[in-house]
């Protein structure tokens, strides 16, 4: 993109003209895009040039992070009063419409920028080690770079269509990465399922866009935030429809009930992919969308209630399924769905900053957990590969006692587990506590929020339980992998554990971003201050009543005890009786089976929607209407009619002269009679 292109472009509406580092924000997108092109070419032409690929792949990400950091610094230096718009070129032009391909730089997008590029770089470094043995190495990095590029477009987009480019782009990349090992059908199916379910969500975003356009004649976030409060009635039918459709998009993308089924299946992709896409970045796009349009959601309290409701319900529902899963990545997948439920509970209650805060901390410890499990799986693969056994390397029942072999991974994952459970000084505690406090606070005025708070608390208990169960089954107790494999178990190489350490640190001190008032030391409410200009309008419409004093302390005490109880229970119950290895473990019975089978939701969807739709379109539409009705009756039918008439005609020509004469004479006589009259 040449500089002249930049200068020649018209600026849009009431935004500050881009100055300083913010003008180069489009570089953050350009770098991964270039990375994608280079790696893509390498994948096609010389896939074995692995070092070149890894250098380009990670280098590009670090460059993007550097750009993000400089933009952050510039914004921190002198925060602009209005969002900075960097318009590259005008994209869709029609009468009264001029949609720009433009990026918006403000506090919220910078936070997301930092998270995406930061965590993304760590995961890229981890992938260098994890994917080294894989043949499709170059292709993997190409897709990963493309994903980051699209994610940045999503985060930086200054209007809904540009956001939609990123929105569908990340869907595409998750499709490509989930079915990365497309050799076997299961992965390809999982990828297709992910894309289709996302697509159902995208339908919502599309319709919301159309509604918005016909109401305010613009799709720019800034213009929407300015015009909507004036033109649309608060809690009116239109604003509820818009926000509900937007939320439908979020449900699809961030895997909330009912469109969450694709996330657990997405574990079919490589583990770093799950860490990046299905924990840290893509799934949080839904939360970002709500936060970005906080004004709309604040103007529609009924929708916010629905958002909070579904968030709480998903948190509880997913956590319950996580209790009985044996595949280490499935547990983490359901944990992600549950934590996303928390975030939506937060933005539903109007605590947008708490939602973003939890998003950031969750990105840290969930990425750490996923990468940690990646190291474990990597080691297990290595061991099973050495002894050519075909055990499932991801099944926790085959692990156990890995503490001795992988001390670093164990230590770091323990930190992450404590963080996610909400143990005091770690980051998870602050973000989750703030959400529950906000929910409780709102509970005073709207009773239903107490129910949501209760569901959140129960989900917290379950989270602590299944995380500790995971740790116990993998690291503690005695090893079940098998005598011969044991020698091959060893710590993952430094290139993989390095990023884990950084993420561990971030999980530890993550809380500092937004320390609550009661915390003795350190700067308070940093993130609140930072995001204040973005959510100011929304919090005026839907103020968040944070409990203070006695109730606040009670809540904190409750949360801590819940966490402790969950952890102890998880540890004790799992190690109480010896755990059978995977292939001789008995089939679960009763409610446990239902949980393990994920409430049979997948099967229900398949039976109720997918199979009947396919059958309907094959039998009724294609065979019935198309072949039968239109072709059968219409085209071939009339042809058949013509042929039949022809046949009757030929029957008349019997060849018998006598017959002809008779017919001829009858005609003659009849003619005579008519003439004679």
């Amino acid at each position, binding site marked *: 993109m040449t500089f002249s292109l930049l200068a020649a472009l018209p600026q849009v509406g009431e935004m500050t003209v881009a100055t300083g580092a913010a003008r180069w924000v489009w570089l953050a997108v350009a770098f991964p895009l270039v990375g994608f092109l280079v790696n893509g070419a390498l994948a096609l032409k010389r896939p074995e040039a692995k070092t070149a690929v890894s250098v380009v792949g990670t280098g590009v990400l670090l460059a993007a992070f550097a750009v993000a950091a400089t933009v952050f610094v510039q914004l921190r230096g002198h925060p602009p009063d209005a969002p900075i718009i960097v318009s590259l070129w005008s994209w869709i032009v029609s009468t009264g419409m001029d949609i720009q391909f433009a990026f918006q730089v403000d506090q919220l997008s910078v936070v997301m920028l930092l998270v995406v590029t930061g965590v993304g770089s760590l995961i890229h470094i981890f992938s260098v080690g994890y994917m080294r043995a894989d043949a499709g190495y170059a292709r993997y990095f190409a897709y990963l770079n493309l994903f980051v590029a699209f994610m940045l477009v999503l985060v930086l987009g200054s209007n809904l269509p540009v956001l939609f480019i990123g929105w569908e782009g990340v869907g595409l990349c998750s499709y490509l990465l989930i079915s990365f090992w497309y050799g076997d059908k299961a992965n390809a199916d999982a990828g297709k399922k992910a894309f289709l379910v996302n697509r159902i969500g995208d339908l919502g975003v599309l319709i919301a866009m159309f509604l918005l356009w016909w109401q305010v004649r613009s799709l720019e976030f800034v213009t929407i935030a300015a015009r909507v409060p004036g033109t649309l009635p608060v809690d009116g039918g239109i604003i509820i429809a818009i926000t509900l459709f937007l939320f439908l998009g979020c449900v699809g993308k961030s895997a909330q009930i009912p469109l969450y089924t694709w996330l657990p299946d997405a574990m079919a992709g490589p583990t770093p992919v799950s860490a990046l896409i299905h924990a840290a970045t893509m799934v949080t796009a839904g939360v970002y969308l709500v936060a970005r349009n906080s004004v709309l959601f604040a103007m529609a309290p009924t929708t916010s209630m629905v958002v909070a409701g579904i968030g709480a319900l998903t948190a509880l529902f997913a956590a319950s399924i996580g209790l009985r899963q044996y595949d280490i990545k499935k547990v983490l997948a359901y944990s992600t769905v549950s934590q996303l439920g928390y975030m939506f509970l937060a933005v539903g209650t109007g605590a947008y900053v708490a939602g973003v805060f939890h998003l950031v901390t969750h990105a840290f410890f969930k990425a750490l957990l996923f990468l940690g499990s990646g190291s474990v799986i990597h080691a297990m693969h290595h061991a099973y590969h050495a002894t050519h056994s075909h055990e499932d390397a991801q099944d926790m029942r085959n692990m156990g006692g890995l503490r001795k072999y992988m001390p670093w991974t164990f230590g770091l994952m323990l930190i992450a587990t404590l963080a996610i459970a909400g143990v005091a000084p770690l980051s998870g505690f602050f973000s989750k506590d703030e959400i529950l406090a906000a929910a409780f606070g709102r509970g005073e005025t709207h009773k239903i929020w107490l129910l949501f708070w209760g569901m959140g608390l129960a989900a917290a208990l379950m989270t602590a339980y299944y995380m500790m169960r995971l740790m116990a089954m993998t690291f503690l107790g005695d090893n079940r992998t098998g005598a011969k494999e044991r020698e091959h178990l060893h710590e993952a190489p430094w290139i993989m554990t390095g990023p884990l350490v950084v993420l561990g640190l971030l999980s530890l001190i993550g809380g500092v971003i937004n320390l609550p008032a009661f915390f003795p030391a350190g700067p308070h409410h940093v993130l609140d201050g930072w995001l204040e200009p973005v959510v100011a309008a929304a919090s005026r419409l839907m103020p968040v009543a944070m409990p203070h004093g006695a109730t606040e302390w009670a809540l904190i005490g409750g949360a801590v005890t819940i966490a402790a109880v969950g952890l102890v229970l998880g540890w004790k119950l799992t190690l109480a009786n010896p755990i059978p290895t995977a292939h001789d473990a008995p089939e679960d019975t009763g409610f446990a089976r239902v949980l393990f089978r994920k409430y049979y939701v997948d099967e229900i969807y398949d039976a109720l929607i997918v199979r009947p739709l396919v059958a309907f379109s094959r039998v009724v539409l294609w065979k019935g209407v198309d072949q039968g009705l239109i072709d059968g009756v219409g085209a071939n039918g009339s042809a058949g009619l013509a042929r039949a008439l022809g046949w009757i005609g030929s029957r008349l020509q019997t060849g018998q002269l*006598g017959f002809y004469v*008779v017919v001829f*004479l*009858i005609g003659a*006589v009849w003619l*005579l*009679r008519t003439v*004679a009259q």
Partner: protein
Amino acid sequence: MSGQTVFYILAGAAILSALLCIIQKNPIASVLWLISTMFALAGIYVLLQAQFIAAIQVLVYAGAIMVLFLFVIMLLNLGRDTGDLRGMPVRLAAVLVAGGLLGELVLLARVTPGSMALLRGTAVGAGTPMASFPAGQAGAAAPGAQGVVGAIAEPLFRTYLVPFEITSILLLAAVVGAVVLAKRKL
């Protein structure tokens, strides 16, 4: 006996022999009866003052064409008795058609020069009905001046010259056709 009775005798003979001609089982008998019908017709022509036509009828029609028929029957020795009457449904149809036809044509009996004049719309009162048919007058008077053959020749070679030439071409075509069809191999 007056012309009237002769006409009726000849007419009866013609109809009778025609009937017998189609009823005969044996084709040769049919041919012969047909020839007798032709002779009866020739007689009627004479009565209608068409003497030349009568002569031609006897000469060409009865003489040439009927002989040709006889010759072909003899050639294919079809003299045997061939029961070739058609089945019941056709007979029914035949009766029906014949009835219909007769129903129509019997009305012709009442046609007289007078009724024709009426048809032509000329006033009946102007003398005899024949008055309104000048051509008829001339036709009847002509034999007197140029003789029977001359009367015919005059319109044949003057007004109807073109059709005459066409018929000659037709005959040529017929001859060629007959030769080609009948020859065993060219």
